[in-house]
């Protein structure tokens, strides 16, 4: 076919159309962003895949059966008890009322984060055959890990509210503010999941470091302790810890039933956006390279 014919060809389009279902045009763009509008459109079109993957993974972890569902509640609750005993021993029994509820609320939402990141890190490298066989937005793989984690998180909130009531803490309208830091944590989690999943493709030992990092991160966040207990000179640690602001706001709203501090909310939002945009752009700009790296 001559050059003139192809330029007159109405289908001789640019690679915006790469993800169109019927006509595909592939042109060089190894590193660099695909057209984001088309990418997001295609991502949305394939959302069923992420949901199905999340559901299937959850079922595969033996949570599919009726008895398995019990573990969804029991696991985080036992975890909370373990940390409570730990802190109780360290503090020799001195803790403010409602501390157990504070601890559980923090742990549950922290596990929403870490239970997403842990499987997300290998989501691309272990999805090898799927990646080598089909062209689809690869962000679906780490995002499916976030969905699985959300599905595990929701029943734990029931546990929280039971303990909240049992601890004699009041239920206020201000508690609804907790939705804001929760959304921040979710956006932040998505960003980190995309970041580590892409890093793992290039450095296969990222997954080895991660469990230790997540453990330290847990101790460094206001979960086993209160933000108010931080000595004045060390407040900056809560600012540089991305989860510091989000978890403080989460606890203020959920546990203390007060309107969270604007600084914490703004700080959390800033970290969430930075992680999401940074992690997302890094992943999407590298994802074409994945097929040859796996």
């Amino acid at each position, binding site marked *: 076919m001559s050059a003139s014919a192809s330029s007159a060809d109405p289908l001789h389009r*640019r690679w915006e159309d790469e993800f169109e279902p019927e006509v595909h045009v592939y042109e*060089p763009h190894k590193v660099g962003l695909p057209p984001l509008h088309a990418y997001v459109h295609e991502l949305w079109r394939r959302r069923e895949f992420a949901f199905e993957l999340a559901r299937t993974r959850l079922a595969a972890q033996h949570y599919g059966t009726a008895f398995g569902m019990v573990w969804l509640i029991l696991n985080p609750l036992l975890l909370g008890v373990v940390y409570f005993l730990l802190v109780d021993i360290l503090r020799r029994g001195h803790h403010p009322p409602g501390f157990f509820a504070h601890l559980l609320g923090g742990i549950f939402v922290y596990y929403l984060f870490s239970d997403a990141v842990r499987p997300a890190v290998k989501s691309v490298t272990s999805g090898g055959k*799927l990646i080598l066989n089909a062209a689809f937005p690869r962000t679906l793989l780490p995002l499916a890990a976030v969905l699985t984690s959300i599905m595990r998180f929701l029943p734990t909130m029931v546990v929280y509210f039971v303990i909240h009531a049992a601890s004699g803490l009041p239920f206020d309208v201000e508690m609804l503010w907790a939705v804001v830091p929760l959304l921040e944590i979710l956006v932040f989690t998505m960003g980190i999941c995309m970041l580590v999943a892409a890093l793992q493709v290039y450095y296969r030992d990222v997954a080895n470091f991660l469990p230790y990092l997540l453990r330290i991160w847990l101790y460094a966040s206001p979960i086993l302790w209160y933000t108010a207990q931080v000595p004045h000179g060390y407040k900056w640690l809560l600012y540089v810890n991305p989860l510091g602001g989000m978890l403080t706001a989460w606890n203020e709203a959920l546990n203390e039933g007060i309107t969270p501090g604007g600084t914490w909310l703004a700080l959390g939002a800033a970290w969430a956006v930075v992680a999401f945009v940074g992690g997302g752009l890094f992943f999407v700009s590298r994802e074409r390279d994945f097929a040859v790296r796996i």
Partner: protein
Amino acid sequence: MPAPAAPEPRAAASASIKVENVSITYQTALAHRQTLVGTLSRIRRRRKVTKEIRAVRDVSFEVPRGTVLGIVGANGAGKSTLVRAMAGILPPTRGRIEVHGRVSTLLALGVGFDRKLTGRQNVMLGGLAAGLSRETLAEKYAEIVEFAELEEFMDMPMRTYSQGMYGRLAFSVAVNMEPDILLIDEALSVGDAHFKRKSFDKMRELCEQAHTIVLVSHALRSLRELADETIWLHRGELVEYGRPNKVIRAYQRFLNVDEDDEETQEDV
């Protein structure tokens, strides 16, 4: 960025696949398992971390609608890389690829990406990832299972499958999706003699139904029978493009095998 032209119905859709001056070069990690620790130590010792591979070099051809194109070539000739580029999995480094139609791929035995999951779950996930709707999948599911003859295995984890069962399921998924374009890499001979016969018949049926098919294979006798056109790649370059008989004979002369040796190549 200019807005894409309004999609007009294509009057003369002559080519299903157009490959224009395509070169594919990629970096691959030298280490078997690239790690952060390993990379740091390699950088400190000033060793190279990645190696450049020029898998495809300035290849151009067109596949007219309804044509069965065979691709032959020695190991490492760039056949698989080229097919992946046509599937949109690898982007070309230079040049341009245009594909018209819905594509189904059978590369690297794609189904069964998670061996812990059942056959059914893998078929569903693979199909959804390929962009099929839940409804379409539900419609095709029975057909896929029946063709693969795996009725009683679909709810078992795929780690319990034999290699042949893997192949049968993957083949069945790829051919039952009613694609406009089917890209197949080295999967003509899966399963036992019975299934091989069946898949060959299915292939011939698809070939006759004006589907566009690209077949990468070492099974030269099958290619001779199925393909309308054949490409011979060598070290990433297009050596010859033409009728299967002519190209395959040239390729065999190059390999130094004669027709009698075809038997030995059939099951590779």
